[in-house]
């Protein structure tokens, strides 16, 4: 009871989660995304070539097929680039913030004292670029779990250690 105070909170004095500058994902993550698109479109291209050569109905529609293909590729590249640009994160003292979304900008905030466990995820491609994804799980189910991709492996390790420490303290 010795130094108990109970001042009125000034809402404008509180740290503003929406105003802080967030860290963008590591540039190498864009390469990972590109390679994933390339693999998918290579697969589609193979299918298209097979279709053109073996299905008679496609004869004479080659231009249509390939222009659709190019159009789709362009659109997907554009939106992937946009989504990469839009993704950003911040690990604050007491919570983690992750922002993403092309049409709607969605910002998720999870206080560390609600995190149940932390995991580090490395995909095959990500590993080749030395990247990892920090995954945070809460008791709120799938909707309130969070994965922050595109962080350099050593950094991700540090973050995980830090979070583990924060969780441990509360227990």
């Amino acid at each position, binding site marked *: 009871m010795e130094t108990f105070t109970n001042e009125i909170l000034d809402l404008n004095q*509180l740290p503003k989660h929406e105003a802080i500058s967030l860290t963008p994902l590591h540039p190498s993550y864009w390469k990972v995304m590109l390679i994933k698109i390339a693999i998918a479109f290579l697969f589609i291209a193979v299918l298209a070539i097979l279709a053109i050569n073996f299905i008679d109905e496609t004869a004479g529609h080659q231009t249509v097929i390939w222009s659709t293909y190019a159009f789709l590729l362009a659109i997907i590249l554009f939106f992937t680039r946009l989504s990469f640009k839009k993704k950003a994160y911040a690990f604050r003292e007491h919570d983690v913030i992750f922002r993403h*979304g092309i049409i709607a900008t969605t910002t998720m905030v999870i206080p560390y004292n609600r995190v149940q466990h932390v995991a580090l995820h490395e995909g095959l491609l990500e590993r080749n670029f030395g990247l990892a994804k920090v995954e945070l799980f809460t008791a709120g189910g799938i909707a309130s779990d969070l994965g922050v991709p595109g962080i350099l492996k050593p950094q991700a390790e540090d973050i995980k250690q830090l979070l583990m420490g924060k969780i441990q303290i509360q227990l």
Partner: protein
Amino acid sequence: MENHFNHPQRQSKIGIIVLFADSLQKYARAFLPIAFIFVLKGDTINVLYLYLGLLAIVVIVGVIAYLRYINFTFYIDDQKEEFIISEGIFNKTRTSIQLNKIQQVNLSQNIVHRIINVYALDVDTAGSDTKEGNIKAVSHEMALALKSKLLENENKVKTTEFTEITDPKTNFSVPFLKIDLVSLFKIGITSNYVRTIGLLLTFFFTIYDGLSQAGKTDVVSSDNVNSLIENKPIIYVILMFIVVMFAVVFILNIARTVIKFFGYTVAKQKGSLVLSYGLINTKSTILKPEKVQITKVSSNYFQKKLNVLEIKIKQAVGHADNKNKNIIEIPGCNSQEADEIIKLLFKELPQEGEMLKPNFRKLGFSIFLLIIVPLSVFYSVGHWVKPVIFDYVSIAVFYAVAITILLCFGFRNYRLFVNDDYIIKQSGAWDVDKEIIQIEKIQALTTSQLFWHKNINIGSLTLHTAGGNVTFYLGKFDRINQLVNLWLYKLETQNSNWM
């Protein structure tokens, strides 16, 4: 004599009957095809063999039931603070549940339990659903003793929270709320129309489908129907149909509500609520206030007039697929009783506080989605594909008007109330729901804003709790962000017990 459950012990002896019934039910499915063949060929097989066969089955099942009884033991390990159940005749299974993980202990009775007066006891944990304990048959005293033992052990961990007098007499069931038959009737006739109509339609179509597959559509052929309604004005037929429909819905609703919730009592026990209800299967559930995540109070216009309302309580869920299990319904209490229950859950009555309204664009968007889009589809189909459907233009108009009214009411009721400790979201057009969340139960917060809403400063907010999410669409984004900052501050400066 007080039972400490420290040593492995068996279920009630008479409970063998329950195990017998349970096993019989299990094997009946496997034996059914064989039995069916026997019955079909009944005249060629000696009746004696049939009876002998049946007797053999009963004896075998009886032996299995006995072995299951012998091999089933449970006890509480005081050192490790675990509840341990061992079962299995050949494949032994040992389930141990940490006492402080126990979320609920449910007592239930089916018809067999009722006859021999024993109870089944289920132990629910917060985590995975594989590790759940289920004891098939124990006597009433034992069930109650075990239940209180299991839950009392948990209270030890947080002794400071419950400083109530634990007088052994008041320990068990002093119901402070009993829901009478009249209230159940009131709830039955005023709720769940849509669900029951849906069920009815499904039922009807299943039957119809079954009949048409069996080639017996002539039972309900159009001739029959025509003769029934001929020479009568169309409006009369429609009215008759509506009246019959409503009558059926009312009866089904009342029957469902009464069977499910008959004799609903709420009792206080060591800071928890004990709910028991049911006509055929009696269920008893323990509800701990600190495990409540979202409390939903709903009522509609009729229910307000009749002074009844429904409370749904969502507890922490381990997995998405057993969500329904963790919703507890309290049907048909009046507003004072509801206040009492809410006071028990929160230790006070949450006040509504500051009100946030949605932007009018929310109404605009729903009108666009539910009226303009379907009507344009209707018009385009009529204009270009099948002009015949313009005969039904009155239905389209009726639909548009009805939906508009519903949406307007829904918009008017759509509010978010915020005060120091609670967030209350109000929504619904006919059934008005109030979802109450304690700020400390929030697990994560999400804000979302469409890029064309940036300049007009509106956006959405989602509160994630262990009992599900609550979203408020298109409120003032500045204010939402300010509130998020405030809530984050509150969550991060104190380590509250959210479960």
